[in-house]
C-alpha cells in the first residue's frame, strides 16, 4: 500500500488554446485528506476530472491508485459540484445511489442483497434514508448533495473526490458532512475542493492551492504566500479559533 493515491507529474492541460493547468506536480499519499483551494477558473475541477480519467492531460502523466486513471474506475468515488444530469429524469433516489454498485464485469447480473445493503447504508450515513423512494427531481439542493455523496460512498471507494460538497448545504448539514469526511479519511484517501477555509483549517491534513500552477503544502497551515500566489492578490486569512487577523499586515490599501 505504499503506492500514492494520486500522482501527477508535469501535468499540463488546456481547453483548446486556453491553458488551465501548467506543470502541475502532486503526490497524494494513501489516507491523506487534502483540500484543494484556488480561485474560480483556477483549474480545480479540471484537476479532479484528470484524476477521474474523464480528461486526458495535454502533457505529463497521471496515475491513480498506482494505475492509469481509466483503469482505476470503480475504485474512485466522485461527488460533482453541479449535478450533470437532468433533474426531470424519472428515477428514484435509491436507484441513483445504487449506481455506485454498478461495474463492467457484473453488467449482466442483478444487484445482490449486499449491493442493496451497501447502498442503503450509504444513504443512512448521510442521514437521507427517508429519501430513498423520492424522485430525484423532488429533492432540495442540500438533499441532492447528500444523495450524491451517498452514491459515491456506495461505490466503496479507496479514493474519494469531492467538488465543493458543502456549497449548497446549510450550516448544520455542512458541518455534519465535514465530520463525515474526517471520519472517512481514517480509512480512505479524501480530496476535497472547497472555499470553506474555516472548515478546512479544522479538518484536513494538507492543503494545496491551485491557480493554473499548484502550490502544495504538506500541512494544513495556509501561508499568506500560498494564498497570494493562488488568488493573485493579498488575502486576509481569518481562521477559526482566532478571532483576529492571523496574518501579518501585508501593506497595500491602508
Amino acid at each position, binding site marked *: 500500500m505504499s503506492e500514492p493515491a494520486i500522482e501527477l507529474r508535469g501535468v499540463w492541460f488546456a481547453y483548446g488554446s486556453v491553458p488551465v493547468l501548467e506543470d502541475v506536480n502532486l503526490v497524494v499519499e494513501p489516507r491523506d485528506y487534502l483540500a484543494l483551494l484556488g480561485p474560480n477558473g483556477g483549474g480545480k475541477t479540471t484537476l479532479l476530472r484528470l484524476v477521474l480519467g474523464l480528461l486526458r492531460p495535454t502533457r505529463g502523466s497521471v496515475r491513480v491508485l498506482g494505475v492509469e486513471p481509466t483503469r482505476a474506475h470503480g475504485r474512485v468515488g466522485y461527488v460533482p459540484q453541479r449535478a450533470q444530469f437532468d433533474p426531470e429524469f424519472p428515477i*428514484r433516489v435509491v436507484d441513483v445511489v445504487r449506481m455506485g454498485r454498478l461495474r463492467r464485469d457484473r453488467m449482466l447480473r442483478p444487484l445482490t442483497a449486499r449491493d442493496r445493503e451497501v447502498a442503503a447504508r450509504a444513504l443512512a450515513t448521510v442521514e437521507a434514508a427517508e429519501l430513498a423512494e423520492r424522485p430525484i427531481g423532488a429533492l432540495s439542493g442540500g438533499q441532492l448533495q447528500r444523495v450524491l455523496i451517498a452514491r459515491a460512498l456506495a461505490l466503496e471507494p479507496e479514493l474519494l473526490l469531492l467538488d465543493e460538497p458543502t456549497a449548497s448545504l446549510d450550516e448544520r448539514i455542512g458541518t455534519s458532512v465535514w465530520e463525515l469526511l474526517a471520519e472517512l479519511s481514517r480509512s480512505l484517501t479524501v480530496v476535497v475542493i472547497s472555499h470553506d477555509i474555516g472548515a478546512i483549517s479544522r479538518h484536513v491534513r494538507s492543503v494545496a492551492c491551485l491557480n493554473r500552477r499548484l502550490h502544495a503544502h504538506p500541512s494544513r497551515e495556509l501561508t499568506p504566500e500560498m494564498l497570494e500566489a493562488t488568488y493573485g492578490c493579498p488575502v486576509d486569512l481569518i481562521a477559526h479559533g482566532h478571532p483576529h487577523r492571523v496574518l501579518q499586515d501585508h501593506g497595500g490599501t491602508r
Partner: protein
Amino acid sequence: MDAWTEPFFLRVVAAGLLASVACGVIGTFVVARRIAGISGGISHAAFGGVGLGYLLDFDPTLGAAAFGLAAGVAIGLVSRRVGAGLDTLISMVWAVGMALGVLFVALAPGYAPDLTGYLFGSLLLVPWKYVLWIALVDAIVLGGVAVLFKELQATSFDEEFAEVAGLPVEALFLGLLALTSLAVVVLIRVAGVILAIALLTIPAAASRQWTRSLRPMMAWATAACAACTLGGLLLSWSVATRVDVALPPGPLVILLAAALYVASSGARALVRRRAEASGSA
C-alpha cells in the same frame, strides 16, 4: 360492417399493438435521455435505405433498417467526440438520408407505387411477414432492455458517474441507439419516416407526466401508444365505411397522440392545482 370480423383488420391491429411495445419501451429512453433529435435523424436517414431498396430491388424495410442502424451508430460515435455542434450534425444526417432516398427512387426503374406508405405509414397494407418482424424487434428490444436495464438507466441518467463507476458508457449508448433504430423501423410501418418520431416521443412524454421511474413510464407509454394506434385504426375504418373517404391511419394516430398529450397535461395541471389547494387549506 364490423371491423373485428375482418381478418385483415385483425392483422393490422396485431401489428399496431406489437409496434406499441417497442414504441413505449424505447420512447421512454428517448424522452428521458432527450435523444429525440438523434431519433429523428435515424428515422429520416432510414429513407435513404428505402430508396436503395427500390433501386436495387430488395425489401425497402431492410434498407431502412440498415440505414437507420448506420445513422444511429454514426451519430452516436461522433456525438461523443464533438460535443457541441451535435444538432448541426443531426440535421445533416437527417437531410442527406432523405436526399439519397429521393435520388435512389428517381433512379429506380418504373414507378414507386407505395412510396407515400414509407413517408407517412402504411399500416393497412401490413402483411403477416411484417407482423412477425415487429414481434421479433419487440423481443430484441425487451430482451436488451431487461438484461441491461440498470446500466441503461444509469448511463441515461448520469453518464459521467456511470463512466467513473466503470461502465462501458459508449458501448451502452451505441446499444441503446441500435435498439432505437430497430424501434424506428417498426414505427415507420405505422406512421412513416416523417411521423415516426412523434410516435416515439408523444406517448412517452404523456406517460412521463404521471410516473416517477422508468419502468412504469414504459408501461404507460406502451398503453398510450396502443390506445392511439387502435383509436386511429378504428377512426380510419369508421370514416371509410360511413362516408367512404379513405383516411390513412398513420396521421390519425399522431393526432390522437397529440390530443392525448394535451389532455394529459391539462389533467396534470388540474391535479396539481387541487393538491396545492388541499395542501393550503
